[in-house]
């Protein structure tokens, strides 16, 4: 590489580096820095608090509950979206007159903003919403989708699944289209039925797409905020508060920015550890299968 090339390469990647530093690394550094203080986010003065925020967060029952809710949404949504994603991708990978139409239909929810989707579903599922009015007309008792603590968590999870499936389908469709047709021809000659084709060819060959989809869903669901804010405001009685929701609430409503920073650092550590472990495991699985 000649010297001029190095400079031109440096020039080309510098905007990316600057953006990465300014909007990712520096905020993360400051997040950690302020988590060791007792700043309320407003006062001109603040003092060093050591590990007290972390100790308090460790014993905070609301935080533990939020972690539990977040993990529930993450695990259920990640599994469900991937199962549905593979199933629909296999269905949509077949040639047919309506295939492109169906692909658009499944992808459509992703084009809508989470906030808009939240308001739409709220008008459908609230106690006097469209769905419950329909139930009443059918003589069925209304359902408290947002008023029952358990059902509210399931409702938010369902909506996360509904909105994310389209994107995951696209990833799996791309994976399916990269599988050589000759592999299917070979197993068909050996007499494999459709389930055996899926089990021994399709699923193993989708390993890279599977890794990407799992990680995408996992990291996205761990940051669940918008739907909670729009649909339930964390209620009823805090039953749907996720970690991200609590970080914002503690920081901006209770004015404890340093404490909320410590919650965010915990979240960062948990998400990093789990996503790195998952990535390592899934990469090894890819190597084993392919």
């Amino acid at each position: 590489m000649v010297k001029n090339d190095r400079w031109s390469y440096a020039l080309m990647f510098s905007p990316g580096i600057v953006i990465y530093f300014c909007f990712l690394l520096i905020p993360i550094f400051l997040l950690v820095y302020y988590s060791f203080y007792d700043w309320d986010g407003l006062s001109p003065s603040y003092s060093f608090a050591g590990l007290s925020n972390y100790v308090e967060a460790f014993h905070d029952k609301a935080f533990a509950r939020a972690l539990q809710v977040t993990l529930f949404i993450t695990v259920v949504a990640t599994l469900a979206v991937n199962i549905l994603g593979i199933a629909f991708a296999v269905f949509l990978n077949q040639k047919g007159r309506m295939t492109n139409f169906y692909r658009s239909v499944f992808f459509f929810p992703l084009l809508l903003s989470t906030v808009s989707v939240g308001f739409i579903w709220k008008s459908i599922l609230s106690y006097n919403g469209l769905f419950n009015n329909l139930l009443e007309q059918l003589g069925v008792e209304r359902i408290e989708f947002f008023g029952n603590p358990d059902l509210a968590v399931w409702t938010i999870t369902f909506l996360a699944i509904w909105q994310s499936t389209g994107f995951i389908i696209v990833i799996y469709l791309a994976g399916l289209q990269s599988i050589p047709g000759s592999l299917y021809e070979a197993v068909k000659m050996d007499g494999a039925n459709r389930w055996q084709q899926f089990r021994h060819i399709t699923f193993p060959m989708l390993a890279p797409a599977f890794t990407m989809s799992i990680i995408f869903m996992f990291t996205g669901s761990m940051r669940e905020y918008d739907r909670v804010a729009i649909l339930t405001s964390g209620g009823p009685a805090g039953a749907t508060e996720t970690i991200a929701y609590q970080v914002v609430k503690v920081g901006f409503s209770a004015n404890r920015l340093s404490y909320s920073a410590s919650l965010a650092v915990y979240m960062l550590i948990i998400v990093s550890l789990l996503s790195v472990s998952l990535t390592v495991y899934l990469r090894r699985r890819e190597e084993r299968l392919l």
Partner: protein
Amino acid sequence: MRKWFALGMGMMMVTGLAACGGNSNGNGGSSGNESTPAQTANSSESKGTDKETVKDIEIVFQSWVTPNLTVEYYDQLIQKFESANPGITIKRIQPPANEGSPDSYLKTLLASGDFPDVVQNATIQMFVDADALLEIPIDEDIKNINNYEAEMIDGKLYNISAIRQPQSLVFYNKKLFAEAGIASTPKSWAELEAAAEKLKAKNITPLLTAGDWTAGFTFSVMTSPSVYKDNKSWYADRFDNKVKFTDENWKEAAGYYANLVEKGYFNKGALSIDYTAVEQEFLKGKGAMYPMGSWFSAAEAVAEKDFEVGVFATPTKDGTQYLLGGENAGGYAVAKNTKHAEEALKFAKFMMLDPEAHKGFLQADALFSNLKEPLKWEMSPLQTEIYELLLNNPPMVGHMNNKVGRVPVAGIQDQYNKVAQNILLGDVDVEKGMQSLDEYWDKNNK
């Protein structure tokens, strides 16, 4: 450092998580040149109406836009002010989303050095603690406001407001009350229970509430008057550990509320609807009583319905009327670091005290004038009833997250919501709920 942190946190928390967008379009004059109140007062006197000296000054104004206080309302007044004050232009900004108050938006602007010259409807105590607000000189204009001392902090005034906003009101459907044979409105807890029982016997839902903040609000307005009528500085005393939420009076009030829930007087599915929906439920005649603030009367005035709505103060244990609400709360405040303190103060006063602006503000949000010579506006019959209730009421204190002697610890309204929602979910352990309010207080009193 804090500036960077705010930018980072603002991006990560607000833009990233809330998807609300970090629209900091306030780039007004908020740097350097601090003005002390004395300087402001002096400059007001010396410069007075000398318009020639004012050259192209821009005042950044954070407005509070609601369905009642529209953009047109502000723009019309701004135009009037600009015409009367050549050389001063007003740049109006507003929070990207209505979150109940502009506080979060203002916090990000403050941290990034873009705090507007004039702010509206902010939590005054919070921004005084942040040393962000200018002390308002007590001049003749201010002395023209009844009870202007109510919102003072450590003997200093930081907001210009001349309004009364009663909040502990129960709106009722006169037709349903007549159907149930209720002749007079309840004044005491026992009378309210008796009325609710009569309504329930007629298969009418006695009381309406909703999830989100409405649950906490309903709980607070139904319980607090019995406690605060005997102690108008309860929050100040709570800071001094003289009183607690687990004291007998509070436990008794919360127990009374839980009893109303337990007896099935509230609407089914309350936690699955929000404020907008419950308001519609009441206006459709699906419930007899609706505890809400005076602002509801603005919606009632334009609603089509086949019944009349009346109002009474939320009953107290012994039947003594005591309304809670805002007494010169909110309003307009001026940034301490504004470059144009005199002009900003002039604009803030104009927005609250100019007769046209004052009247428009009152009418839009169904508020009541707190001037020595109160301005009257065209009130609906319901608003007239509220006005008459106010006449018989001593100066109000706040409740929930508002001042009762002192402003409570930040975010206490979220804990009220949790307690109220737990009760609506059937949790009858009221003492545990009240204890959680004490725990929240102690944990966040830092």
